[in-house]
């Protein structure tokens, strides 16, 4: 016992205060590829963040940035197109505008975090329960979801816990392309959850089927089977990206509750 306490004290506090403080990210981390200087369409809902597009783009039209807060409520927000014209010497002559799907993009994690805290405290009675379902993932997304419970990311700071039963859950966090064999289990889990509830699709696979796409065994993204409230890009999304998306979904749940009580 003494050893444990000694070890605990010596280790000190390791939890990082993301999003109150900026996440410490190594300069080598590969986040969102930026395409804002050339006509290219990038779908962050399909992207596995391999970086090949930037390597292939010798004029740096596509660059890799360190942004990762890409979660959104609208699937169309993940498709970005930038317009450009090229000179003969492969430099850009004129830059067009960047087109996005409609709807706002909620990237400021601090604001999202603040709002989510308020929702959890005031509306949800200080706790929010998530039921996670792997509907066919490669387990990469689960590796990062499990990391949310480690002392560094510690999602319980927000009053958020992972629940064993869907009957106690407010949020369904789904990974993977939905396989033919998991469709029914996913639907049953969703139906067992009380209203109001939100569904979050995690990772390229959860959003669009990712690298697996649609085939005889894979139905594709979660929204093929369930209504999705928030999409979190990544392959897998890093833990902070997951926190950002989950907090965004808390906001969405707050809206639903408000709507329900207003009636």
């Amino acid at each position, binding site marked *: 016992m003494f*050893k*444990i306490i000694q*070890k*605990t004290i010596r*280790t000190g506090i*390791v939890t990082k205060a993301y999003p109150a403080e900026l996440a410490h*990210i*190594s300069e*080598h*981390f*590969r986040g969102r590829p930026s395409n804002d200087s050339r006509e290219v369409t990038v779908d962050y809902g399909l992207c*596995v*963040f*391999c*970086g090949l597009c930037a390597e292939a783009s010798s004029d740096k039209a596509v660059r890799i940035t360190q942004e990762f807060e890409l979660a959104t409520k609208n699937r169309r927000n993940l498709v970005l197109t930038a317009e450009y014209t090229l000179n003969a010497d492969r430099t850009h002559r004129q830059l067009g505008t960047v087109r996005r799907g409609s709807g706002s993009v909620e990237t400021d994690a601090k604001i999202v975090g603040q709002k989510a805290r308020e929702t959890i405290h005031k509306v949800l009675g200080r706790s929010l329960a998530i039921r*996670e*379902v*792997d*509907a*066919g*993932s*490669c*387990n*990469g*997304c*689960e*590796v*990062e979801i*499990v*990391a949310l*419970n*480690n*002392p*560094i*990311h510690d999602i319980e700071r927000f009053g958020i816990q*992972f629940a*064993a*039963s869907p009957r106690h859950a407010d949020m369904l966090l789904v990974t*993977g*392309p939905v*396989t*033919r*064999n*998991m*469709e*029914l*289990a996913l639907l049953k*889990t969703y139906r067992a959850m009380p209203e109001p509830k939100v569904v979050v699709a995690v990772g390229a696979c959860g959003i669009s089927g*990712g*690298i*697996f*796409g*649609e*085939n*005889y*065994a*894979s139905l594709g993204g979660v929204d093929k089977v369930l209504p999705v409230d928030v999409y979190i890009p990544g*392959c*897998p999304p*890093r833990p902070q990206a997951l926190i950002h998306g989950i907090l965004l979904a808390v906001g969405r749940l707050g809206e639903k509750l408000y709507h329900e009580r207003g009636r």
Partner: protein
Amino acid sequence: MSTFFEALQQKFGAQVQSMSAEREQEVYLHVGDPDIRALVEYLRNEFQARLVTVFAEDRRSAEGVFFNYYVLEGKGDPRYLIVRAPVRADHPEFPSLSAQLPAVNWQEREIQDWFGLKAAGHPNPRRVALHDNWPDVHPLRKDFPLETLLPPFEGERHIYRPALGEGVFQVPVGPVHAGTIEPGHFNFAVAGEPILYLQLRMFYTHKGTEKLFEKLPIPKAVFLAESISGDSSFSHGTAFCQAIERVAQMEVPLRARIMRTILLELERICNHVADIGAIATDVGFVIANAHASRLKEMLASLNEQLTGNRLLRGMVCVGGVRRGWDAVQLVSLRAAIDAFASEFQDLIALIDSSESTRDRLELTGVLRPEKARDLGIVGVAGRASGMDLDVRRDHPYAAYGRYSFRVPVYQIGDVSHRMQVRVDEVNESLGILRSAAEESLHGEFCTQVPPISADRCALSAVEGWRGEIIHWIRTGPDNHLERCKINDPSLNNWPALVEAVQGNIIADFPVINKSFNLSYSGTDR
């Protein structure tokens, strides 16, 4: 090799037709008949050969037949012997080996489900890789298109063996489990607390991976390989790239081979430390897990620093690795190895100081060595039950030939030994990492990929952190593959879990399961 072939010809006559070796490590033996029971028996008895994996290929359009491949490994022999046996298209049937070799039980049934070749005489020929509600399709046949739209799933119709007797009842669990883990179904028959037997239903995450490999251009297929089993991204990615490199007869630069070795070992210690923490949690020692997951996080940050991704993705490529490391990255690597090493010793001392933890792990979930041998158990689970196997030592790849390390083997096969194998392996890995990180990493880190000719086969093996990973490929035209067989060690090892839980109380199931920590996605593909 020729004397070996002559001996086989004397014994088996016209059944053994020819022998060829395009590469030193890979010898193909072509036989004329699908019945290879006597041959396999002979190889096992005479050469202590171990059957590594069994798989099939649809060659009807090119050669008019299907082929079954039996990969064997002789004790102390760095080569793989691959027996190729034809299965007639008009009589799609082959004699099953499962009765004499339970290790191939699932693999033969997978061939049955995916290729429609009947494993005649199989003791339990029911479906395994396609669920019972699937229509009569064989997705890995060439005339089955990847995009085929099947009627929607209407619920599982699998019939489990009934639990009979007074006070005996069934406990079905899954496919969705209580924790954040992958889906699968466990059906326990219990008599009060003790588990009588466990029936497994896997393949819930089957997503057409092997078929999809036949559709992607090779550079993109590398990313698919990284997504076979997320926690083994680098091992599967490397196994895949090695297979292509062998086909194309490419020489991977030393710098890349050393970097691959470093990253493979980082993947190993990252997962081992997480498992050590998780095993401790499952017996109630949660604080150990807090430290273990902190250490894992430390390695995830290092991974990101070295490769731009916390799971080491997007780094390995055909020909080497995609980026070199600068001085700053190398300094971080060395510093992280030292910091991890001292923290790891602390963690183990902490766990060792908890008598109740040790007590719960000892003689829990025992897999006896004879059973491990019969079932063909590999990797960590195998080594905890007397199976002295390690691809790094037995079939060296990357830069493993340059470093010395010990392969820990234990005999009792309980949770405690599976934990101990991990602890020892982390320490050995740290030794490899220290030596490798001191090497001078200069020169090329990737060679140019030559045009890849069609119709070439290659086998590649990697000791992933769970165990032996096998990829076998046949190239096709236009930088595509004709076939890609993936064998994750999990597929071999699930039967070990069934064996190890028998007689244990159901409350110990989580820790026993965790001590194997098998990949569902790697199994189901």
